[in-house]
């Protein structure tokens, strides 16, 4: 491998944390979803790196499944964003506080 697995893992972890930070800190629903995308990509990177390390192809196959699922998930979540935007007129997460105790 061109780089030690540890570097790939570190890189992937950094991406994941950035994605997590985006999810937790942003209030715009679109930005939250983007954060999710970043995290999923970080996972994909880990899988590909592992596939290279163990010289097995299964990691890459899993990545394709991951991408397929992600597209499905994005489709539905964006449809829901559209719905919320139409109903409430806002997509700021803090405005949806109906579960407030």
């Amino acid at each position, binding site marked *: 491998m*061109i780089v030690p697995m540890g570097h790939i893992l570190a890189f992937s972890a950094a991406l994941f944390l950035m994605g997590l930070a985006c999810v937790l800190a942003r209030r*715009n629903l679109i*930005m939250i979803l983007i954060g999710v995308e970043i995290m999923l990509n970080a996972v*994909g990177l880990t899988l590909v790196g592992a*596939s290279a390390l163990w010289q097995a*192809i299964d990691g890459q196959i899993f990545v394709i499944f991951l991408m397929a699922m992600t597209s*499905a998930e994005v489709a*539905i979540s964006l449809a829901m964003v559209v719905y919320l935007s139409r109903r409430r007129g806002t997509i700021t997460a803090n405005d949806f506080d109906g579960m407030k105790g």
Partner: protein
Amino acid sequence: MATVIFYILGFTALAATALCITRRNPVHAVIYLVNAFFALALIFFLLGAPLVAAWEIIIYAGAIMVLFLFIIMMLELAPTEELRGPGWLRWGPVVLLSAVLLGCTLLLIVAQPMAGTGEAAYYATPRDFGYALFDRYALAVQIVSFQLLFAAVGAYYVGRVERGRR
């Protein structure tokens, strides 16, 4: 050489992601994210997964991010006020990042950075990939295709405009 390119691409991806998550304008965020995905695709190529790299571009950057843009544009979620500050502060980062990515791509096409790194052991050709996918994971493929159908139906249903409203 491949190692150097890897590190360059790595930092590019991290910078692009960092910029992405800090943008107020979602459209800008999406653009930066596309840059990051591009960098990640090149990394995938360096790690012996050309098919996955291609799909990263096609599906992720090409379909999913475009879908994001569709929704952002449709719902007019982007703030339209003009950003203050000089123009190069707005365009600079993305141009820089894109230039780095372009350079790396050209390098990968022209030079052979992978030669001599023992890469052939883990390089997954499309042929190998296809065999593995439809041989061992055929059931999973079927299930995932069902799932895509459900998602499509679900997305249609959630997003439809009801009669009698507005």
